[in-house]
C-alpha cells in the first residue's frame, strides 16, 4: 500500500528512445549470452531494484505481463513504482509471472517454481531477473550454446549455493525452461535456456 512516505520516482524521461536503447541492450544480452551489457540510461531505480532490473522491466513489462517480486519488494516502493510505471499486475504465485525479480542470494523461490512454458508453447515461460552482488569475482562458469562463438566464461558472485545446479536443471528442460537475466547496477548478462553451463574450478 503506497503511503505518503512512499514517493514514486520518475521513470523514463524519453520513453520512446530510452526504451529502444534499453531493448537493444537486452536483445544483445540474450542473443549473445555471457556478454556483459550496460544499460546506460539515467533512471533512478526504486529501493530494492538494480538499475538494470528497473530498466528491463520498464522496457518490457506492461498490463499484459504479471510480475513476481519478493514480498518485501512487492509491498515496498519497488512494487508501487512498477504498478505505476508499467501498469503491471504483481502476482504472488511465481508460476503465473511473465517476469520475476529474485535476489540471487536468497534461498527461495527456486527457479523451478516459475513457469517453464509447455512443449507446445515454450515461449510462455517466465523471464527471471536475478539480482547479483556483482557480475564478476564469483565462481567461474563456462558457457556454450547459441550466440556464443566456441565458449565464454562468466563469474557472477553472490549467488545461493546450488544455483548453478538449478540453472543446469532448467537447461535440461530445453526447449522449455525459464530465461535468466543476471543484473547488477547498470549491467546485465543474458542467460537464456539454450545456454549450457559448464563449471570450471
Amino acid at each position, binding site marked *: 500500500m503506497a503511503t505518503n512516505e512512499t514517493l514514486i520516482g520518475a521513470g523514463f524521461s524519453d520513453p520512446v528512445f530510452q526504451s529502444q536503447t534499453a531493448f537493444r541492450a537486452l536483445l544483445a544480452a*540474450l542473443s549473445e549470452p555471457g556478454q556483459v551489457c550496460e544499460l546506460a540510461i539515467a533512471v533512478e531505480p526504486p529501493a530494492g531494484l538494480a538499475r538494470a532490473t528497473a530498466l528491463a522491466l520498464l522496457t518490457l513489462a506492461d498490463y499484459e505481463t504479471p510480475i513476481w517480486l519478493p514480498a518485501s519488494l512487492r509491498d515496498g516502493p519497488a512494487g508501487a513504482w512498477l504498478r505505476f510505471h508499467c501498469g503491471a499486475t504483481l502476482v504472488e504465485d511465481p508460476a503465473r509471472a511473465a517476469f520475476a525479480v529474485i535476489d540471487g542470494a536468497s534461498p527461495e523461490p527456486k527457479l523451478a517454481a516459475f513457469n517453464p512454458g509447455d512443449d507446445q508453447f515454450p515461449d510462455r515461460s517466465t523471464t527471471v531477473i536475478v539480482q547479483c552482488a556483482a557480475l564478476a569475482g564469483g565462481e567461474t562458469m563456462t558457457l556454450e550454446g547459441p550466440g556464443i562463438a566456441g565458449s565464454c566464461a562468466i563469474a557472477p558472485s553472490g549467488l545461493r549455493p546450488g544455483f548453478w545446479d538449478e540453472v543446469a536443471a532448467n537447461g535440461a528442460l530445453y526447449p522449455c525452461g525459464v530465461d535468466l537475466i543476471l543484473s547488477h547496477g547498470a549491467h546485465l548478462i543474458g542467460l537464456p535456456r539454450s545456454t549450457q553451463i559448464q563449471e570450471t574450478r
Partner: protein
Amino acid sequence: MNTHLNVGEDTKPAYNYAYLDEQTKRMIRRALLKAVAIPGYQVPFGSREMPLARGWGTGGIQVTAAIIGPEDRLKVIDQGADDTTNAVSIRRFFERTADARTTEATDEATIIQTRHRIPEAPLKAGQIMVYQVPQPEPLRKLEPHEAETRKMHAWGEYGLMQVKLYENIARFGEVTTTYDYPVMVNGRYVMAPSPIPKFDNPKMQMSPALQLFGAGREKRIYAVPPHTSVRSLDFEDHPFRIQSWEQPCGLCGAADSYLDEVVIDDQGGRMFVCSDSHHCETRRAEGHRGAMLADASALHLVEDEAKS
C-alpha cells in the same frame, strides 16, 4: 498522410516514432527475446495492420520498427536489389516514420531488412538481418492444421519432412526444393529460412549476425542468434548442394554469387547477372568486368566505371 516530424520540433509528430505505438513495440520486443532464447521456434505475436498490404513485408517491417533507433543505418533489399519497388518503398517508409539513416552498402548497415536474399558480402557481428516471411511454418504444405504442426514441433516429429525430401529424390534423383529449403536450427527445430534460394542457406550457419524473422499475415516471429548451428536437411548419400551456374555474372564477372537469368531479346538471348545489386556495383567499381558490360553500358542500362 502527414509525415513524421523530428522529435524536438515544436509541432507534435503525426504518429509515434517508427510508426508503431509503444505498447505494440513492447509486445514485439518480448516476442523477439523469447524467439532468441528458443532458436527456430515460432513465437506467436499480435501482428498489426500496417499501411501496406499483407504479403508486402509487414512482418519484417514490424520487427524493424520494434528494434530501429537513431543510431541505426538501415539497408533494405528485395531479391538482392536495393532499387526494386518493395525495397524502395520500405526504405522510404522508415525514412519518413523513423528519420532512419539508410544505406545501400552491406558493410555500413546495422539493420538489413530483406526479402528473399542474404547479401553476398559476409555479415559482421553486431549486424541484424530482418527477414520478411510469407509462410513461417515449414511443415504447412505437409500438414495444414496448426494444432498438428505445433505438436510435431513440440515433439521434434519431423519424419514427414524427411519423407517429403526422400520422395523428391526417389522421383527426380535429387531434392528439387530450390528456395525456402528447410533447415534444422540448433539441432532442435526445423525452420523455414524464408524464401531465400538454397544458395544462401550455408550463410546462415554460424553467422556472426543476429537473424530475426517476421511473418505479419501468419503472426509469427522467430530468430537465429549469432553463432548458431543451421543445417540444411539432407541425407548421407544425398548431401545438400547449392545451385551453380555455367557462366559468371555478365556485368561484373563474379563466379561465386547468386545469378538471375535475364531475357534480353525475343531471339532466345539471355544473360546472367548478380541478384545482389550492391555486390555487383561494388565489383564493377573495383574494375571487374563481365563479358556483357560494354553492351549494357552502351545502352545506358548500367554505368561503366572504367569509361566514366
